[in-house]
């Protein structure tokens, strides 16, 4: 897709989604779309570091969790929710920069297992310190408006997609991709690898922190350690790879597909979607590294070739 066409399509989709709460009065539809939008944000944020800069971050849930933890605490204490979310993102980015320089000494798979360990350290610690379930005060529950959460999720998802799209053609994005392909070669041609990787991580964790804040704003009650669970990382990874890692619209397609199948299957079999997505993911890594986006492109090319040969005949 060309830039202008995909931008128009993106805007049209966002506009259509913005009218949904006005037209549809069913909470289940809004809740479903909320989950899709949250997943889009989380997957796009993961995509910046993994897809563009090529660093598989398996501790992504830590930043989502920090955003949730901070936002929830400030918001319940009386701060306006948007301010609390920004603070949550700041804490996530702060932690990312704190550990980033150390973690980026690790390359490839070692970065992946190192960040996995970091995420688990945070999850266990938060689970120990804040073991009680966090529930909203009765007054807040009484004034709960799903549409507010929905619009916030839509704005955040749109922002995440826009950030990744803007990154795509920019100098920064090109530098990140150069690091992904060959870090030594990128350094040799003047790309400051560590600086760019830290920048990618900061962008990624800011979005993850905001997504965590949204989670804290949306849920009435949850265990504070829950948003730190590695499942959030795994969801982001599956969605991004299935959709198309390192592309703008891959994680969007992936999120729609993933959340739809997950919710559909959950009616009868809880967690069964992981069996399907685990195997699908393996197949994609082995056979179709570009995910659904590449599959669509290949099918498109095949169809065009068919049409052309038919015309020539």
């Amino acid at each position, binding site marked *: 897709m060309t830039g202008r066409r995909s931008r128009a399509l993106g805007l049209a989709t966002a506009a259509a989604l913005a009218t949904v709460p006005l037209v549809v009065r069913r909470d289940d539809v809004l809740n479903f779309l909320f989950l899709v939008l949250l997943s889009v944000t989380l997957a796009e944020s993961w995509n910046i570091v993994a897809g563009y800069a090529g660093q*598989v971050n398996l501790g992504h849930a830590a930043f989502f969790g920090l955003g949730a933890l901070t936002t929830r605490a400030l918001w319940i204490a009386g701060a306006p929710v948007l301010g609390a979310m920004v603070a949550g993102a700041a804490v996530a980015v702060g932690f990312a920069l704190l550990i980033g320089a*150390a*973690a980026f*000494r*690790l*390359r*490839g*798979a*070692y970065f*992946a*297992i*190192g960040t*996995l*360990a*970091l995420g*688990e*350290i945070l999850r*266990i*610690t938060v*689970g*120990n310190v804040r073991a009680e379930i966090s529930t909203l005060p009765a007054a807040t529950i009484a004034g709960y408006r799903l549409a507010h959460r929905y619009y916030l999720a839509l704005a955040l998802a749109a922002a995440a997609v826009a950030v990744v799209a803007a990154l795509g053609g920019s100098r920064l994005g090109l530098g990140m991709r150069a690091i992904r392909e060959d870090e030594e070669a990128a350094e040799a041609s003047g790309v400051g690898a560590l600086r760019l990787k830290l920048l990618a991580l900061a962008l990624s964790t800011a979005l993850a922190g905001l997504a965590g804040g949204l989670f804290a704003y949306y849920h009435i009650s949850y265990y504070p350690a829950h948003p730190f669970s*590695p499942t959030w990382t*795994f969801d982001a*990874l*599956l969605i991004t*790879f299935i959709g198309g890692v390192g592309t703008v619209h891959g994680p969007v397609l992936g999120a729609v597909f993933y959340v739809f199948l997950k919710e559909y299957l959950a009616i009868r*079999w*809880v*967690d*069964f*979607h*992981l*069996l399907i*997505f*685990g*195997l*699908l*993911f*393996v197949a994609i*890594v*082995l056979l179709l590294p570009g995910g659904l986006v590449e599959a669509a492109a290949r099918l498109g090319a095949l169809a065009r070739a068919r049409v052309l040969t038919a015309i020539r005949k």
Partner: protein
Amino acid sequence: MTPLFQQLVLGLLIGGLYGLAAAGLSLVFGVLKVLNVAHGQLIMLGGYGAFWLFALRGLDPFASLAVVIPAALVAGGVLYWTLFGWVVRAPEETRVKNSLLIGFGLALALEAAAVRLWTADERSVTTGYAGAVLTVAGLAVPVVRLASLALALALCGGLHLVLARWRWGRAIRATAEDWEAALMTGIDVRRAYLLAFALGTALAGAAGTLVSVGYSISPSIGLEWTLKALIVVVLAGLGSMLGTFVGGLVLGLAEAVSATVFGGPYREVVGLVVFFVVLVARPRGLFVR
């Protein structure tokens, strides 16, 4: 002081299983340069194998090792043929990264399958002698766990002998050292890979069986055991099975100390912190012999 010593005894006992769990991962990683993060899920399946044999056939869990180990050997061969054999053609860095991703997808699928088959409940194999406890110098030593420790040591020692003496064991070591040189001396490198992967899976199966006897299993224990095995591999380095076993004991002891000092819930944290620090301190030299 007694609570600390008691914790240390228990730490040592589970440390043997950490060592056994790590031995399989270390063998596969050292030889194939394949990082199988589904290793913990293979341990989990080994545990359910023993649980099934006990619940359905009444087979003693220690005797069921004679069934679980060969079955895991075959399962490892199948996994190599269908999945991990595909990535060994890639250059080393891509190989490690792609195997991590494949292992990851496999881990999710196996865990979901285990929930379908056995539900998410915790299980353990409770034999007639499960409650037996030896008392040594005022410290309680559960007999089953002591037997598990001994078996873990025996299996690591056995693997050491296999690698040192057996023709194919030497071929596996040569392949780990330098696969191109091994290929030139006429070693069938692909078969060495297959054997190493199957042996690693068999060790996971054995570890799972021992976990199901002295401790408990559930579909979600995989990630935890993968991390334990990774921590031990990072602590002990590659290349020596007995070194890996000792690394497991060290982790068990370190967890015991941390549980006593910082409280039980922080048992897991110390290993992870050490893991991260060691990893960052030696980002490249770590897995080099």
